[in-house]
């Protein structure tokens, strides 16, 4: 039977109850404090770039499929709003080279989300990205989620 990512993490972390609990908690909160549709779009793009098939499927189920299918061409697509495009641009730069994100990309997200919204978004992005990277590494080490 296929395991969810959460079940997989529970098994890998085993008796490390503190880390297990706080990772689950911070991940849940990330989805509470950022617009779920927006974060799902960004999660989908992260999972695609990092090559995490499980999380690609997980993100797609919460998105309009025509939008999900067009995400690789977001910059030229009419499916995406300026707000979504600014967040997707920032997300790609964050994933590929976090130390080289241009000021213009950060300003564009801040203009759409506000200053506190921007800081919240970046931290939520960090949680989602790190969780996917952990999934990829641990899947290699101990076997896939089977999803």
């Amino acid at each position: 039977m296929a395991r969810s990512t959460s079940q997989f993490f529970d098994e890998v972390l085993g008796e490390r109850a503190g880390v297990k609990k706080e990772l689950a908690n911070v991940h849940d909160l990330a989805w509470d404090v950022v617009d779920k549709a927006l974060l799902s779009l960004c999660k989908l793009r992260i999972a695609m770039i990092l090559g995490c098939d499980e999380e690609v499927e997980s993100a797609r189920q919460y998105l309009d499929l025509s939008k999900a299918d067009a995400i690789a061409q977001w910059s030229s697509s009419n499916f995406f709003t300026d707000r979504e495009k600014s967040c997707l641009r920032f997300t790609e730069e964050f994933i590929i080279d976090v130390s080289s994100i241009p000021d213009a990309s950060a300003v564009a997200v801040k203009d759409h989300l506000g200053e506190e919204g921007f800081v919240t978004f970046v931290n939520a992005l960090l949680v989602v990205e790190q969780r996917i990277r952990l999934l990829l590494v641990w899947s290699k080490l101990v076997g896939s989620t089977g999803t």
Partner: protein
Amino acid sequence: MRTQRVESSSFNALFREALSRWQEEVVQLDLVDPVTTEMVRLRCAEHHDCHT
């Protein structure tokens, strides 16, 4: 150091506290030796331009 992009780094208090608790739990893990852990931490902090 890069351009400062926000006046304040404050954000949702519950989320901020949850991030701190998660990081505290991670640094308490002891399967990696302290020197390696610190080298990785410093490298990550430099890459992220993090001064905490």
